């Protein structure tokens, strides 16, 4: 396939789409499928056939539209009219949509989700621009929206050096959490000596409460492949790996199909777009280990080994997969490449803040009215995200904290709701941008309990290679358990804080280094809650049961002689 073939394909597809009067887009992402999107789509198709509309109405399964808690979502596109979103669609209402809206032009009012809601208005879709609008399983749909033309442009008009420079100029930073400048990383790999180089897309999205990468992989797989291919060209790699979290079977299936289609059409594989550049992409399925989100552990896993990290330096850019220079970026980072090459670095850099450019996808969840997947410009305030986009915490509830970055992140309290969401501001608060999980908590959440939840997660996910993370997290978890069951003493709090700093500074990889963050950030903003647990054996949120007590406080109540009735509390253990 050449560039001209690509343009021809786009033309044909557009003609095909314009041939129908109306398109019914039905979200086929995991959350909507979980709420019954498949039967909704069947009902739509059935209604279309029953009413003999096959020639003029197309039912298309698409990727994510955003408001996941309102799924299944259906969009009705009629030429010359504004798109209309339907929420909580059932097979019955699907039938009505066809009969009333499509046939009689009478939209089904009670199921409409108004498109002028701040939920939509405040978003800025760069990475998810196609999501919810195209059929992720059809290459033509992607090509019709200028798919693969950025790759064609890069291959024809740009040198690898220029591609790296363009990415650098855009100010794009890694979306996996740490925010390392992407262009700089690409350039390091490009300059690294070595015949063989690799590109890896990290889709091992392990933070509980985050599903941005899954959505992108499920909703617009070709954009990711194209981004990876551009990266391959820029750094001089001919092989890419897409590491997909094991829990994402739909994403893996769609990506697999996309790779096969792209290879067949000469958009991947040998001699991409009839150039001298060859690029293969293979999928590797994760097997359930959070630590594999760490780049060196992920590479161990791709090589079929235990997912244990290795000390850096050497960095993957110098010595990665099979000791070759390796570029490893998050899936969402790769999602930004196509628009940057297509529209230029300046266009991209015009969105966002001085140091954090572009947009960020967040998975908004927890105690907010509308939960779901949102893409917002960097620098938007937390308040706008929660109250405008999310619709607030609901009548009778009080906002208490927003948790970002999952087990590596922190909690942001109400007094910092006006913080702009960018790398530096979040870090200054002891939270991190993270991969984009954003969980809202109200007064029903107890902060030491939340810290304990994350610490238990880290204990479970620690690979066991280095001592501070392997044992330190267990000891921190024990202390948090004592705090939340009423048997902690003031000394415990001191030991906990010491351990936090030590584990942070001495652990081998990011998992251990960031494991104390949830504790440190809750101690910083909600210290009085910890103190209430310890000094008064009270849980202000009413979550912790406080069934135990410190050893000596119980002396009077203890059974004295062996086999006397009464129980000695386990806190003595």
């Amino acid at each position: 396939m050449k560039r001209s073939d690509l343009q021809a394909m786009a033309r044909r597809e557009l003609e095909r789409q314009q041939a129908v009067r109306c398109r019914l887009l039905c979200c086929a992402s995991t959350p909507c499928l979980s709420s019954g999107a498949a039967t909704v789509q069947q009902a739509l198709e059935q209604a279309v056939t029953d009413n003999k509309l096959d020639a003029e109405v197309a039912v298309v399964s698409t990727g994510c539209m955003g408001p996941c808690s309102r799924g299944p979502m259906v969009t009705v596109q009629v030429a010359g009219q504004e798109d209309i979103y339907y929420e909580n669609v059932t097979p019955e209402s699907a039938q009505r949509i066809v009969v009333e809206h499509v046939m009689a032009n009478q939209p089904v009012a009670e199921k409409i989700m108004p498109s002028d809601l701040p939920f939509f208005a405040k978003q800025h879709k760069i990475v998810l621009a196609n999501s919810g609008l195209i059929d992720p399983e059809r290459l033509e749909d992607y090509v019709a929206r200028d798919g693969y033309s950025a790759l064609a442009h890069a291959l024809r008009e740009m040198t690898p050096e220029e591609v790296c420079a363009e990415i650098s100029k855009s100010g794009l930073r890694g979306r996996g959490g740490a925010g390392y400048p992407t262009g700089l990383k690409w350039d390091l790999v490009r300059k690294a000596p070595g015949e063989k180089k690799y590109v890896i897309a990290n889709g091992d999205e392990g933070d509980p409460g985050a599903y941005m990468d899954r959505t992108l992989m499920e909703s617009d797989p070709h954009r990711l492949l194209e981004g990876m291919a551009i990266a391959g060209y820029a750094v001089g790699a001919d092989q890419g790996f897409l590491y997909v979290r094991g829990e994402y079977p739909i994403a893996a299936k769609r990506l697999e199909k996309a790779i096969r289609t792209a290879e067949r059409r000469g958009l991947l594989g040998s001699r991409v777009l009839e150039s001298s550049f060859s690029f293969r992409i293979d999928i590797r399925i994760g097997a359930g280990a959070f630590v594999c989100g760490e780049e060196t552990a992920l590479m161990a896993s791709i090589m079929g080994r235990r997912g244990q990290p290795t000390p850096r330096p050497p960095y993957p850019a110098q010595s990665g997969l099979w000791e070759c220079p390796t570029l490893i970026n998050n899936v969402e980072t790769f999602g930004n490449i196509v628009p940057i090459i297509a529209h230029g670095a300046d266009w991209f850099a015009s969105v966002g803040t001085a140091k954090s450019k572009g947009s960020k996808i967040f998975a908004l969840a927890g105690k907010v009215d509308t939960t779901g997947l949102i893409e917002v410009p960097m620098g938007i305030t937390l308040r706008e995200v929660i109250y405008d986009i999310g619709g607030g915490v609901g009548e009778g509830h009080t906002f208490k904290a927003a948790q970002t970055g999952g087990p590596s992140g922190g909690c942001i309290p109400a007094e910092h709701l006006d913080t702009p969401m960018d790398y530096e501001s979040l870090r200054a608060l002891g939270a991190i941008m993270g991969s984009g999980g954003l969980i809202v908590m109200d007064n029903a959440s107890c902060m030491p309990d939340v810290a304990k939840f994350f610490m238990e997660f880290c204990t479970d996910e620690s690979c066991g290679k280095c001592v501070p993370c392997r044992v330190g997290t267990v000891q921190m978890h024990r202390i948090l358990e004592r705090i939340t069951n009423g048997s902690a003493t003031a000394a415990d709090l001191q030991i906990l804080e010491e351990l936090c700093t030590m584990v942070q500074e001495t652990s081998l990889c990011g998992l251990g280094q960031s494991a104390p963050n949830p504790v440190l950030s809750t101690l910083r903003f909600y210290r009085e809650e910890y103190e209430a647990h310890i000094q008064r054996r009270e849980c202000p949120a009413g979550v912790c049961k406080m069934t135990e007590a410190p050893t000596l406080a119980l002396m009077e109540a203890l059974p004295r002689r062996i086999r006397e009735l009464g129980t000695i509390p386990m806190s003595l253990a």
Partner: protein
Amino acid sequence: MVESRTRSAASPDLPHPSGDPRFALIDRTLKRFRFQQDALIEVLHTAQEAFGFLEEDLLIYVARQLKLPLSWVYGVATFYHFFSLQPQGEHNCIVCMGTACYVKRAAEIVAALQTAYGIEAGQTTPDGMLSITAARCLGSCGLAPVLIVDGQVLARETPETAIAAVQLAIEASAAAGNGRSSQLDDSYDEEGDL
């Protein structure tokens, strides 16, 4: 000399001596990856899909085919949560313990299921009827708290609805005339708390 030649020729191509056709699935993956040792995790994925869990015999087969040490294969198989070295229950109930679900009290659902069926999360009932798993995050945070019973996603659950859903799944297979499960129903009746 002759003997060694036949032996070496035999290993990759001939079907597994047990004649179990499921080994053919593993062989297909092995071939796809040209017996490269790096493919271990992919091969284990296939093996688990085909057999449901990774029994010892299977691990030995994979180790031999990839020419990897046994301890290496065992080390990898036990590192990743996806791989199970124990058979799973006939029914399974996965409770999401992601942050959004936790904030919406998923821990109470796990506790209720554990009490109701007398097993911890990650275990299978002694009769092999039910496995309860606490999952990391199912990524359906908008539907929190989420439960998956035998592959079916259930949204916005409570401890009571969760137990009801699991019970329904177990009873459905009992009604389908499974001898083992009807026995189980009796024992539940005796306990009287279900």
